[in-house]
């Protein structure tokens, strides 16, 4: 039974890589060339992230190993790996574990409920493993490069990399279950969930923003941190010791992390049936007739896209950039010390304007609303296809939503940041143009990628917004677009000067956006109509 469910889960996860779903690409298998191109893009994305994490570990490793604190070095990285895995799995836990569309189907079959939960947790574990590996594996590789290869610690590191995500998985599953229970009991469940997740995310981001200071502190207070970890973060301390070759510590790590997972799994498997079968909150609300107002079709289409964002899981997974803009505004307003430091540094305002444009463009490129907007139509696609609206209008609605949700908070952030950093009005305007055009370019790119890589046969929305190839490809390419701004600055930007460089970047991205819009209006329309 369990094997069957695990196979089904694996098929669902891997299906997007081989076919475009029932409608996509007429169900044809993707060409080997296409798979190679996608694999290369993924390799670039993962490679860039791993290189960044490796660079971070390099500095830490040298200092810790020289001080004889190898265990603390691994413990620190294990903590970071778990934190990353938590962020990677938390926003999808509720949807993936409890809200899958095949709940009724599977529950009607002779599968014990624990097997259904286990197979779904296995899918979530995969996601947690992927995120934790991004931090943990480079740390291990860096360690063996710096100290020389040793077989036993290497085996223990590999074992630990499988054990560590269990804790993040357990916490995510508990959060998912708590949110599902809130959803079953509260009428405004979406609002409550959004507020809770936003509060958690704000806290997490603010903590993360202190990372620079934290690294400095870690490098100078290694012994104190080791003692503190031993007391407060004992499981990670154990994991750290295990990685340095201590077999008892490895057994202890497996026992603690495995034990926590077993306990959470036992609790959730008991509550699973009730959680997935309880009627949702808000179902009892009665309709009261109100005066109806007519809107143009395009407004109705935009409103429809906006309604979808009421689901916090979709909001947090596709519009994370908008949240980051809000957090940035709060951070900038309440960090006078940093603002004063930058203003007193004497750095050229043009240079600061370019950095602000790059940072805000990165944030803008994190919004992935259009990259899953076609996939999310799923079985509802017939509604749009049978409606008397032009495909271009459907595209416009999807683009407008991402552009509005990105550009509105971005504009406020630019006004606040440029005012605080005393950037002259002309440069501020150029920053705004640059960030806005990046937002538009990423929105158009996401839609194109999703048209080429749709997944219309998902059983859980999270598969479309988080685990789809379209989102991964869009994410790496969008980040590439933002990264190009900084690369361009260091190559031609310094020669051109900030105003000219920002104008050039704006013109370049606007032209690319124009070309892509023309493609959408011709080829894109045909692809959509074939779906």
């Amino acid at each position, binding site marked *: 039974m369990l094997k069957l469910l695990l196979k089904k889960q694996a098929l669902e996860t891997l299906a997007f890589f081989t076919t475009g779903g029932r409608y996509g690409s007429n169900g044809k298998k993707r060409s080997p060339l296409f798979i190679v191109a996608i694999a290369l893009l993924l390799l670039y994305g993962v490679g860039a992230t791993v290189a960044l994490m490796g660079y971070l570990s390099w500095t830490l490793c040298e200092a810790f190993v020289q001080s004889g604190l190898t265990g603390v070095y691994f413990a620190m990285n294990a903590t970071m790996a778990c934190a990353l895995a938590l962020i990677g799995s938390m926003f999808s836990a509720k949807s993936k574990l409890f809200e899958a569309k095949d709940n009724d189907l599977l529950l009607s079959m002779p599968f014990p409920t624990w097997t259904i939960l286990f197979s779904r947790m296995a899918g979530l574990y995969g996601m947690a493993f992927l995120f934790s590996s991004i931090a943990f594996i480079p740390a291990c590789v860096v360690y063996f490069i710096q100290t020389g290869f040793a077989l036993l610690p290497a085996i223990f590191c590999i074992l630990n990399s499988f054990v560590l995500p269990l804790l993040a998985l357990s916490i995510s599953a508990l959060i998912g279950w708590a949110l599902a229970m809130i959803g079953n009991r509260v009428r405004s469940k979406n609002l409550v969930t959004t507020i809770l997740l936003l509060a958690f995310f704000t806290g997490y981001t603010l903590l993360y923003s202190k990372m620079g200071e934290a690294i400095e502190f870690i490098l100078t207070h290694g012994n104190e941190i080791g003692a503190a970890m031993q007391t407060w973060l004992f499981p990670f301390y154990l994991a750290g010791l295990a990685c340095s070759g201590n077999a008892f510590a490895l057994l202890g790590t497996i026992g603690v992390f495995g034990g926590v997972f077993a306990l959470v799994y036992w609790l959730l498997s008991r509550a699973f049936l009730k959680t997935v079968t309880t*009627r*949702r909150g*808000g*179902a*009892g*609300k*009665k*309709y*009261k*007739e109100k*005066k*109806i*107002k*007519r*809107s*143009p*079709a395009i*407004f*109705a*289409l935009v*409103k*429809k896209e906006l*309604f*979808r964002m*009421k*689901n916090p899981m979709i909001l947090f997974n596709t519009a994370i950039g908008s949240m980051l803009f809000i957090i940035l505004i709060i951070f900038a307003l309440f960090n006078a010390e940093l603002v004063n430091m930058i203003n007193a540094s004497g750095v050229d305002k043009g240079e600061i304007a370019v950095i602000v444009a790059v940072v805000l463009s990165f944030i803008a490129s994190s919004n992935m609303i259009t990259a899953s907007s076609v996939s999310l139509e*799923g*079985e*509802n696609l*017939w*509604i749009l*296809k*049978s*409606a*008397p*609206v*032009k495909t271009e209008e459907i595209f416009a609605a999807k683009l407008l939503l991402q552009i509005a949700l990105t550009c509105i908070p971005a504009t406020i952030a630019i006004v606040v940041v440029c005012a605080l950093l005393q950037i002259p009005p002309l440069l501020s305007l150029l920053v705004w143009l640059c960030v806005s055009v990046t937002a538009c370019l990423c929105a158009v790119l996401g839609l194109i990628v999703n048209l080429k890589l749709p997944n219309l046969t998902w059983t859980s929305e999270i598969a479309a917004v988080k685990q789809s190839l379209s989102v991964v490809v869009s994410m790496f390419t969008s980040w590439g677009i933002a990264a190009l701004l900084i690369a361009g600055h260091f190559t031609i930007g310094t020669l051109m000067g900030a105003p000219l460089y920002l104008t050039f970047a704006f013109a370049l991205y606007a032209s690319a956006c124009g070309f892509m819009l023309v493609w959408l209006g011709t080829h894109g329309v045909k692809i959509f*109509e*074939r779906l």
Partner: protein
Amino acid sequence: MLKIEHLTKVYGEKKAVDDISLHIQKGEIYGFIGHNGAGKTTTLKACCGLLGFEKGEIYIDGVSVKENPLACKAKLAYIPDNPDLYAFMTGVQYLNFVGDVYKVEASVRQEKIHRHADLFELTESLAMPIGAYSHGMKQKLALISALMHEPKLMIMDEPFVGLDPKAAHTVKQIMRELCDQGSAIFFSTHVLEVAEKLCDKVAIIKDGKLIASGTMEEVTGDTSLEDVFLSMAEER
């Protein structure tokens, strides 16, 4: 109202619909019957512009679906066999969405929603998210939304599946009323008794080919539609 001429739709090497021609006049209820996989849904989807086709032509009220799909879509309403509606919207939000897309005046919309939601006993549930609706409730909501813009042609795929007997009776009444007002209905069904009682004309499709069509009397003669269907299904 609906003119299908030599329609052919191919999936890979398989002809799902093979050279079908049908004419449906104003005021007619036209039933479309056939075994599973015979090509009913493919034909209906092609009529709505949901599926492209290789050969033939489809005209709705004289307008070609190939040449001017938007004008055709504005004249028709389609109800699929399994109406997957936007689960994240409430019933009334969905109706307003459809109303805006079909440019239905606010006052007309208000009156239609009020009348049909009451008729299908769905008024109280209109504030509920569609995700919490049963299959039958979704079917009713899809029907209410379809009726809102007074379509000249209604295309329905298995419209009675999931409806309770009272709702099914209401649907039959509405279908007749709509046709009496000059619209036409083309629908597929497996319920042969309903087709026999409700339809002015009927067409039988088998393996993508039309094997019989015409008025009920022309197709059935002295026997029942069930007998005709079963014997035709065995014969060819």
